[in-house]
């Protein structure tokens, strides 16, 4: 979040406004009692669009500070296109109000195509960068950094000219960008972003907002961030996935009625597509992962049955590392021990140990389908029959 990003910026030597992190309206009031002038109170959330949503407000003095804080905390962030669920607001940042003359944008991220860090600068700061890239793509200047060389100040100079930044930025910009690159590199971040990078009327260049996206896979190198990350709000689907012992990327719900599960992300996506192609709507994406044992399969069964409105469940397994007999055992155990509702299963089981798996299923009175398409068709048919209103 912003306050954590700014803490990292401060450590890296990037100028940031004076600020105080606050949890309650009272914290805000106490702080604003002790300082003079107008300050900015900002909701601390991950999603963008805070200004538009009325979650960034000015306040002066304790009384107004409390009122503004209460107002911001009263409702969660409203949903938008990227975050259809919105986001709860758990804390606030009270910050010095900068006398802003200009706002620019700069960020460093990883470019997949060139396999290099890319530094991006635009003279349009303070707005959604996606909008800028749609409306003024030519305004975004880019530099692809050779990792063997790293950052050198000429990159900042070149970009400041290429992006046509206000001359007021020029002196301080290369050093700020250098500090930002150090931070990006030292913490193995996926993205560092300053939007806006403010130029004040008195000639200071200050990071008015801070965004640092860490790489989950690199958290082992920075244990302190693991705590930050744990404090981040996982969404419902991610929470459910973690509880079922899956990776947080392995489960996602949609609004259809056909539950799906496959081993491997690519096959799981293709399974969803197959259901869709068969005229159905999927209830979820679920990658049970490689080498799934009976217990994991059982957890996945419960996950779909208890947390989606699925009225049929298509299990599509192509055994590689995953063994068909383990999966079959998991399915049979799940059905035998579950106390949850039961929905019709359509199982496709092929690859490693498929004969043994089929035998286990047959002993339990289940006959797997032969192909993925057949499974998708059957599951859609059953789901639609089950979901049809009775009056029809």
């Amino acid at each position, binding site marked *: 979040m912003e306050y954590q990003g700014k803490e990292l910026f401060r450590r890296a030597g990037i100028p940031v406004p004076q600020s105080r992190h606050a949890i309650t309206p009272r914290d805000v009031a106490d702080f604003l009692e002790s300082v003079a002038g107008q300050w900015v109170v900002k909701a601390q959330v991950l999603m963008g669009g805070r200004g538009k949503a009325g979650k960034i407000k000015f306040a002066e003095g304790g009384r107004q500070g409390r009122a503004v804080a209460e107002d911001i905390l009263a409702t969660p962030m409203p949903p938008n296109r990227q975050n259809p669920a919105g986001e709860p607001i758990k804390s606030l940042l009270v910050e010095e109000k900068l006398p802003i003359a200009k706002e620019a944008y700069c960020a460093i991220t990883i470019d997949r195509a060139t396999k290099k860090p890319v530094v991006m600068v635009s003279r349009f700061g303070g707005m959604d960068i996606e909008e800028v890239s749609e409306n003024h793509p030519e305004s975004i200047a880019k530099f692809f950094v050779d990792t063997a060389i790293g950052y050198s100040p000429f990159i900042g100079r070149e970009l400041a000219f290429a992006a046509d930044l206000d001359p007021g930025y020029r002196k301080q910009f290369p050093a700020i960008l250098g500090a930002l690159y150090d931070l990006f590199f030292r913490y193995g971040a996926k993205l560092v972003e300053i939007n806006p990078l403010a130029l004040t009327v008195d000639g200071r260049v200050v990071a008015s907002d801070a965004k640092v996206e860490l*790489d989950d896979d690199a958290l082992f190198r920075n244990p302190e961030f693991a705590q930050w990350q744990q404090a981040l709000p996982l969404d419902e689907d991610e929470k459910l996935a973690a509880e079922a012992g899956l990776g947080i990327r392995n489960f996602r719900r949609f609004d259809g009625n056909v539950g799906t599960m496959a081993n491997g*992300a*690519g*096959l799981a996506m293709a399974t*969803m597509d197959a259901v869709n192609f068969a005229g159905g709507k999927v209830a979820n994406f679920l990658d049970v992962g490689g080498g799934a044992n009976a217990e994991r399969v059982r957890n996945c069964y419960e996950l779909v049955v208890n947390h989606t409105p699925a009225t049929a469940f298509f299990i599509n397994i*192509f055994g590689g590392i995953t063994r068909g007999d383990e999966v079959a055992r998991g399915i049979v155990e799940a059905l035998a021990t579950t106390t949850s509702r039961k929905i019709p299963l359509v199982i496709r089981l092929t690859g490693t140990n498929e004969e043994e798996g089929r035998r286990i299923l047959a002993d339990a009175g289940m006959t797997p389908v032969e192909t*993925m398409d057949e499974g998708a068709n059957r599951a859609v048919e059953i789901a639609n029959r089950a979901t049809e209103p009775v009056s029809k």
Partner: protein
Amino acid sequence: MSIFLDKNSKVIVQGITGAEGSYHTDRMVRYGTDIVGGVTPGKGGQKTAQGLPVFDTVRDAVDATGATHTCIFVPPPFAADALFEAYDAGIALAVCITEGVPVHDVLKVVGSTPGMRIIGPNCPGLISPGKASVGIMPGHVFKEGDVGLISRSGTLTYEVVDGLTRAGFGQSTCVGIGGDPIIGTTFVDCLREFQNDAQTNAIVICGEIGGSDEEDAAAYIREHLAQTPIVAFVGGRNAPPGKSLGHAGAIISGNFGTAQSKIAAFKAAGVPVAERPSEIPALLGKRLTSVA
């Protein structure tokens, strides 16, 4: 000839005494791969269950065996180091199976190991059917033939290959390039190799949402492979924006990386796109007859 891997490739396994490493070593040996040994620091001088020599360092292994290829099964924090060690010892091709390697580590490795071909990370490896397999692919679904296959996914590859094999289309080489945002070998890298491979007469590309590797492949095909029968599949047509589905690289941001954009790019390059994996063999058959 196949690409990247053939009968003469001498393969070592880094992490050969670990659970994954030893299990898959066994499978690779049984497939007929020329596994010449493995590396586990501190266990040099021992032999594996299959009687393969274990070395302390990759350099020792290369010196003793003349290894050209390596298959890496070490945990994520050590994967970059393992790749650098392979590079330093003169390995020509490294397959990194490890999932969860920090993206900056991958950047550093791919940016500073010129001349070494890296497949992955987070990939199932590659196989030249009838010759050798390096990685974790189930050998029995593959069959030797003239179709080259490139895929970002593991199990989906098996699904597609199974369909090809049943329809009578054998494969020259199948490469699982991996599902991470940054990978050592892209679709275009593979296309370039297939283009020069005498055994390969047709190509199947299994893409998925996220990134622009499919669009780049389509542009390359338009330019260099317009006469080659190629069929594509793009997984994740029904994926929502902003959320990774399983693979870290399978994410749509804004209008970037959507299935629609990839499908359009392939079609514009004259590459038919299968709506379901099961349609691939028929589409390929059609392309083959129309080109012939």
